């Protein structure tokens, strides 16, 4: 087995957050090292090559491919406008000519004598990359983008949908075990990031979308309700490109699961602060988890505040069970026997003995997740 347990997701009160903001193709960086950035600052821009139109000139003019060159009135590299003539036959005594007009604005990219096709490249598509989070430019990557840095509270979710959003954090649920209900969502919450407790129903999510809420952070959501939101069954956890008005970030998983205290308290303490979130998730090699970034001023927290990578499970660690039975329950590790133990399923695994509500029980280590305490 590659992993003896699933490491916990990061819940950091204060950390030095760094983020690459990179163009999909090389282009121009518009800011310099040390510049202060707001989430909307455009940091780099470029032009993506336009779409390609392939014109079957020989077919349209009813001639052999090799004769196409003789009929062309343009050459490779020429700029063309929609409606410009690009090829014309000589006709008979200058009459009965056939011609081909360009269907789009663009440039003649290539002319093929073997197939008789003319390739027209449409005008480039401008692309801009914004800063996403307030911060400063830490490093400029020439022609590609920047690395931004800021002091921030940082939380990783387990699963999310929809891409980057930003807004003010609004605490809606009073406790980490409360459901976020539709009646708690109002039109005034447009553009905000709502903090829920254990569960969000489909009805509540739909209401949030209709109110243009920027994002919701909540413990759980039903897997089978995703289809109603996405329009298809989510087969693999690769998300981020969904065009939804409201991003959804689950901190715990599918079903009704109370948000961990550490996560809930950190979000609660940041009620009213601006945050940037990204629902993009990729659970494959090179894992990407959804994130909540809350920039904070350096003076707002003492330097010794919690900011470290999750550690392995040890005796005394607080852990959460991440698979049935006992799914979602929190316990304390009382011992870590080294020998393999047989489970009810007869699977032989490494286990941890954990105490849940005062009762000791054996759980496979692979089914435990660290809960980071602040």
């Amino acid at each position, binding site marked *: 087995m590659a992993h003896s347990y699933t490491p916990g997701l990061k819940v950091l009160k204060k950390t030095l957050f760094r983020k690459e903001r990179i163009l999909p193709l090389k282009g121009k960086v518009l800011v310099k090292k040390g510049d202060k950035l707001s989430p909307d600052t455009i940091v780099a821009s470029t032009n993506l090559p336009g779409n390609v139109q392939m014109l079957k000139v020989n077919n349209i003019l009813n001639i052999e491919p090799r004769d196409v060159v003789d009929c062309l009135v343009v050459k490779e590299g020429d700029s063309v406008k929609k409606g410009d003539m690009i090829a014309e036959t000589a006709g008979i005594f200058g009459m009965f000519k056939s011609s081909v007009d360009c269907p789009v604005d663009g440039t003649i*990219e*290539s002319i093929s004598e073997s*197939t008789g096709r003319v*390739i027209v490249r449409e005008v480039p598509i401008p692309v801009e990359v914004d800063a996403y989070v307030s911060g400063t430019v830490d490093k400029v990557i020439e022609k590609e983008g920047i690395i931004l840095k800021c002091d921030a509270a940082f939380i990783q979710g387990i699963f999310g949908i929809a891409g980057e959003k930003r807004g003010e954090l609004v605490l809606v649920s009073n406790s980490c075990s409360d459901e976020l209900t539709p009646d708690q969502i109002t039109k005034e919450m447009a553009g905000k990031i709502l903090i829920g407790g254990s569960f969000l129903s489909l009805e509540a999510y739909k209401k949030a979308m209709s109110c243009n809420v920027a994002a919701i952070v909540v413990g759980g959501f039903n897997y089978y309700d995703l289809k109603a939101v996405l329009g298809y069954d989510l087969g*693999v956890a690769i998300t981020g490109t969904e065009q939804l008005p409201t991003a959804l970030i689950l901190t715990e998983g599918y079903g009704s699961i109370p948000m961990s205290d550490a996560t809930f308290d950190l979000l609660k303490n940041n009620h009213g602060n601006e945050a940037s979130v990204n629902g993009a998730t990729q659970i494959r090699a*090179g894992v990407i988890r959804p994130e909540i970034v809350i920039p904070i001023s350096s003076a707002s927290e003492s330097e010794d505040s919690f900011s470290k990578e999750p550690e392995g499970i040890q005796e005394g660690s607080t852990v959460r069970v991440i698979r*049935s039975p006992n*799914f979602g329950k929190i316990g304390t590790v009382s011992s870590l026997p080294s020998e393999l133990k047989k489970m009810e*399923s007869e699977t032989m*695994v490494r286990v941890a003995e954990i105490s849940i509500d005062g009762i000791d029980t054996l759980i496979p280590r692979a089914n435990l997740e660290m809960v980071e305490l602040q």
Partner: protein
Amino acid sequence: MSKKIKSILATDCGSTTTKAILIEWKEGRYRLTFRGEAPTTVEAPFEDVTKGVLNAVMEVEELSGRTILNGDQIITPDSGEKGVDIYVSTSSAGGGLQMMVAGVVKSMSGESAERAALGAGSIVMDVLASNDGRLPHEKITRIRQLRPDMILLSGGTDGGTTTHVMELAEILAAANPRPRLGQNYKLPVIYAGNNKAQDSIQSTLGEISDLDIVDNIRPVLERENLEPSRDKIHDLFMEHVMAQAPGYKKLMSWTDAPIMPTPGAVGSLIEMIAKKEGISVVGVDIGGATTDIFSVFEEKFNRTVSANLGMSYSICNVLAESGLDNVLRWVPFDIDRSELTNRIGNKMIRPTTVPQSLEELVIEQAIAREALRLSFIQHKAFATSLKGVQSERTISDAFEQSSSGKSLVNMMDLDLLVGSGGVLSHAPRRQQSARMLIDAFMPEGITQLAVDSIFMMPQLGVLANIDKEELKDDASQAALEVFDNDCLIRLGTCVSPVGKVKPKSKMAQVSLTFKDGSTKEIEILEGSLEMLEVPYEEVKINVVPSRGVDVGAGKGEPVDSVIYGGVVGLIFDGRNRPITLSADPSERIDSLLNWSSAVDEYPKGDLF
């Protein structure tokens, strides 16, 4: 007999784990003696695959007491106590080999190109074809998005029209694709199409890509010529793709044979075994994200990858493609459907968890049956005779619907079914592995079942492919002997008569003669499943099927054969084909419980 090779070290660098095995010549044959494993170190912070290899080899050193490493060098040759004679490796780290293939007609040259790429061990990201229904700019966008490691372009028969394959080449040129790894080299493109177009292809693609031209993959419609393309893919995999991955240049300098893509090595081993034994084989490797199926029928090798059918990362896709009802039909108890989907969803987002309760195990194995079944359906649709071939039809053919493109997979001809991958190899009881294989693949007639317990086939595959003249005989002998003795766990043999009979009536009469001369008679009844514990030894079998029932020799025709038991034994499957489960829930649950109990599949208790 003196052997040129006395010891072999082989590694497989997977995307998460690097596995090392030591094979030694002992008491007149090659045996697997030790194995070790360590996490793969391709990604940050290590970014050097050789570190993981050295760690895995160090584990072998510790276990065997043999010194294999001198610092970070593998000691060769074997000098008794130290070193090994040869070192070989396979790799699927960093996402394996990802290719895009193109052909003029999707079901003809497109399919041949796909077969060549899959056979070489790659993942085929997309098949472009002139007739795939996409507009040129859609194809171009797709090529740019995918960023493959390599492109295989084919199309046209030799001397035929060049227009269509040139159109594809122009689309590739317009897309100007960039390779996935590394910025400083051109994307390798292999052209294996109409030889008349080679010059034009050179002028269209020569500048923007690293173009290699090989013999046509489909020189005439009636013949496929995959070998030159497959060999070129392997060469380029080494030269370009692997050379870009961190640490591979060093690893390549250590090995005595080219590093092969893992599935390519497995495929070549299965092909070799089928050829040597003269049998038909199906091999399956079910992983977290994908399921690979390999088959050899009528001496033709095929491999398919079901990219999104797996047991963790893509477990929800199994659910989406098969439907919840199809999964639940294998579960002999009631369960809340919405809770079940949430549980499966949670397995997808936390892929490393293991089933602790029996209920969870049963559900996971139900999903595995469906993942295997769906993957095999895809495989059967792909493993066909060549499409587009004209054949003369006589009046006797008029009543047969067979045509070109018929599936080669004939379950009645299947001799050996091999499973590997966590859910099959690590099932708590071997009976569970046997049941999953039988329920999903539905073998017919007499079929031997096995699992590859530690997935050693990749290393043995690369060993079997060593082409250094002085070493190749010993290396392939070692690969075959270890495969026979150590790699496979023989589960046993499944006897499945097929044909229409009344429910619960006799399908076949079986007479068995064991090694010690004792005999046993068994009646296979329709709808039943029976197991007989017999170790891995020869058993003479005589099967007399009822009228209208086939066990391999034709309807009603008896069969005499020699079969083998195994860790499970002999399974007599009277459930007919396809296996149908009653629509009535209580009847279905009764049948499931009876079948489980007959093969001692699960521990007795509240559920069983």
